[in-house]
């Protein structure tokens, strides 16, 4: 074996093997690198000691592509007005458009378990529609059926006039969808994800560039567009999720629990974006956070144990179902005042329920007129002086709690479910 032969053999072999080894170690030691199992030392040993296959095993199993070091969150700076300005040129549904979502007897069973039964729903075009229900009510199942990700076992539905049963891509072209736990490719940048989604919608060249730019501005991620998604905060991911859902300017936007996992700041940002889309797309928003619904939605439906309980504009629901509530707050420095008030008020025939807190009394009544007339004289009899007397505005939470706690409503046949503005067949 001559020296030349040895060099010919050894040098390239050593160079290639060392290059691979050092590259893997260099990648492992990057500050932003996350590894499966969390222990970089173990992966270093694998790379160094498992001969040729060590780096390969590391690159296949060690690298955690989904998570990088979370960089500082970027709050939304785009105002609702600015969003409305960007979306002004987007196609809008005409005022007399048919319902954006129409379901008829829609049901889904998993074996013997009914996740959803006989859902008759009509979502007016252009509305921001809150789809409420406790966990396990069937909200996600409904949305998965409406997106075509799952197939119904009963009934039918159309979204933006397209049957959910079709598989020709028309449904996908008309909807935008955000999962309750949106997951993306961590190795991609925000811009790359939006570009991929745009290409799937057939966009290219200038139009793709413009759409992606518009969406990045709406979701306020313009300056983070070149960062890897793996390093995005939860709120930024959620906003990116909305971005990919609106890139095709959908007629119907289906958002599954879009704010449930966010901190207050993230919730505020996402709700601002949804609010900014008012009038541009029909937004169908499932959630169990009722205060958010009151903030942005104009129509709601309440689902419980797979059944639709009620549907209608929020104000009408509040008028019809919210129990009138009076709140009394005694002046401080009156020991036992709350108990005295509660004990006097509780036996009254117009009282439904009295809730006493350390510093106030909350009275649910079944006859607000009688209660309004009788309450203050009763207080006067007790000798308690009040710091505050208020007829409280009932909240959607009151309606929700009232309705989902009435089991008889779960079995109301669809035709008898009160649906404001619609006749028994779901027509306006």
């Amino acid at each position, binding site marked *: 074996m001559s020296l030349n032969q040895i060099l010919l053999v050894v040098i390239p072999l050593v160079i290639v093997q060392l290059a691979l080894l050092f590259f893997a170690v260099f990648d492992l030691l990057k500050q932003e690198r996350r590894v499966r199992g969390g222990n970089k030392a173990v992966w270093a040993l694998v790379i160094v000691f498992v001969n040729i296959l060590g780096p390969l095993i590391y690159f296949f199993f060690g690298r955690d592509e989904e998570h990088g070091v979370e960089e500082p969150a970027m709050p939304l700076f785009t105002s609702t007005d600015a969003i409305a300005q960007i979306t002004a040129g987007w196609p809008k549904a005409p005022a007399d458009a048919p319902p954006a979502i129409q379901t008829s007897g829609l049901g889904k069973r998993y074996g013997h378990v009914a996740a959803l039964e006989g859902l008759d729903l009509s979502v007016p075009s252009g509305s921001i529609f809150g789809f409420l229900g406790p966990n396990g009510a069937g909200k996600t199942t409904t949305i998965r059926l409406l997106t075509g990700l799952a197939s119904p076992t009963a009934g039918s539905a159309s979204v933006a006039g397209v049957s959910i049963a079709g598989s020709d891509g028309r449904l996908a072209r008309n909807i935008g969808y955000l999962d309750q736990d*949106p997951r993306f*490719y961590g190795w991609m940048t925000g811009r790359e994800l939006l570009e991929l989604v745009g290409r799937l919608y057939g966009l290219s060249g200038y139009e793709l560039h413009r759409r992606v730019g518009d969406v990045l501005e709406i979701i306020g991620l313009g300056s983070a567009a070149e960062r890897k998604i793996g390093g995005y905060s939860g709120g930024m991911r959620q906003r990116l999720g909305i971005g990919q859902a609106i890139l095709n300017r959908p007629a119907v936007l289906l958002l599954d629990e879009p704010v449930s996992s966010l901190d207050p700041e993230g919730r505020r940002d996402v709700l601002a974006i949804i609010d900014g889309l008012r009038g541009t797309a029909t937004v169908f928003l499932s959630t169990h956070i009722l205060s958010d619904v009151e903030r942005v939605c104009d129509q709601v439906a309440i689902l419980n144990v797979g059944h639709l309980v009620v549907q209608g504009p929020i104000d009408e629901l509040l008028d019809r179902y919210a129990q009138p509530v009076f709140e009394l707050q005694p002046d401080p420095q009156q020991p036992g005042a709350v108990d005295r008030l509660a004990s006097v008020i509780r036996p009254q025939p117009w009282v439904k329920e009295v809730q006493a807190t350390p510093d106030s009394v909350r009275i649910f009544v079944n006859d607000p007129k009688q209660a309004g007339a009788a309450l203050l004289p009763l207080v006067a009899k007790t000798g308690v002086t009040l710091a505050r007397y208020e007829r409280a505005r009932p909240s959607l939470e009151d309606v929700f709690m009232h309705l989902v706690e009435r089991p008889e409503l779960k079995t109301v046949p669809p035709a008898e479910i009160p649906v404001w503005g619609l006749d028994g067949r779901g027509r306006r």
Partner: protein
Amino acid sequence: MNGFRALLGKELREQLRTYRLPVVAIVFLLFGITSPVLARFTKELLDALGAQATGGIQINIPPPTPADAVGQLVKNLSQFGIFIAILLAMGTVSAEKERGTAALILTKPASRLSFLLAKFVAIGINLAVAVVLACAVGYIYTELLFESAALPIGGYVAMAILLWVAIFTYAALTFLGSTLTRSSAAGAGIGFLALIVTGIIAALPTIGQFMPISLINPAANLGIGAPAGMDLLGPSIAALLFIVVPFGLAWLSFRRQEL
């Protein structure tokens, strides 16, 4: 096929960005270098070490030939190549289903066939790049290390193609496993099970020649310009069926799956 081009671009970019394509190519390249080297110098190394290193046992190794180099390359690539193919394919579909990224893509106007085919083709491209690189380097090293080597280009290319087909077969079977399940480990399990079962069947007379792994020896023969040693038409068609049928089954299953 809606979205195929965009999805194939995404798959290839993912393989580059996660370094899977370059790392697989480099590992294959190393096999391309080491195989002729080992074939060429094993005898000299053992002679240099002497009988002491072999525990007093006299080992008679015939002088190395280019056929040994090609045989070593084919053996290494078929063993480690199949292992790497299973690693490549084991999580392609199941991981996307489990993570939820499949739902993200499939609520867009991308057909499920495009989604699967883009992944399948990307795996095929990755393995093709790696096999071509390994065989090219193996060819150069064999020519350099063996003075008498005159490997036929045509036969050597045929060898590379057969190797790719044999390796890709196991990627296809693992791909099917990955589509049927939601777990990468289960996908890999199905791939390794397929490897064991086809390996056992390959030892049987008549039917054994139709197993993909049976293409390895004829490939090595073709690589050195010798006759394949068997009629390759039937086994080649069978190997292609081992690629097409698992993909077809994967599609039939995936189009009905709820994500």
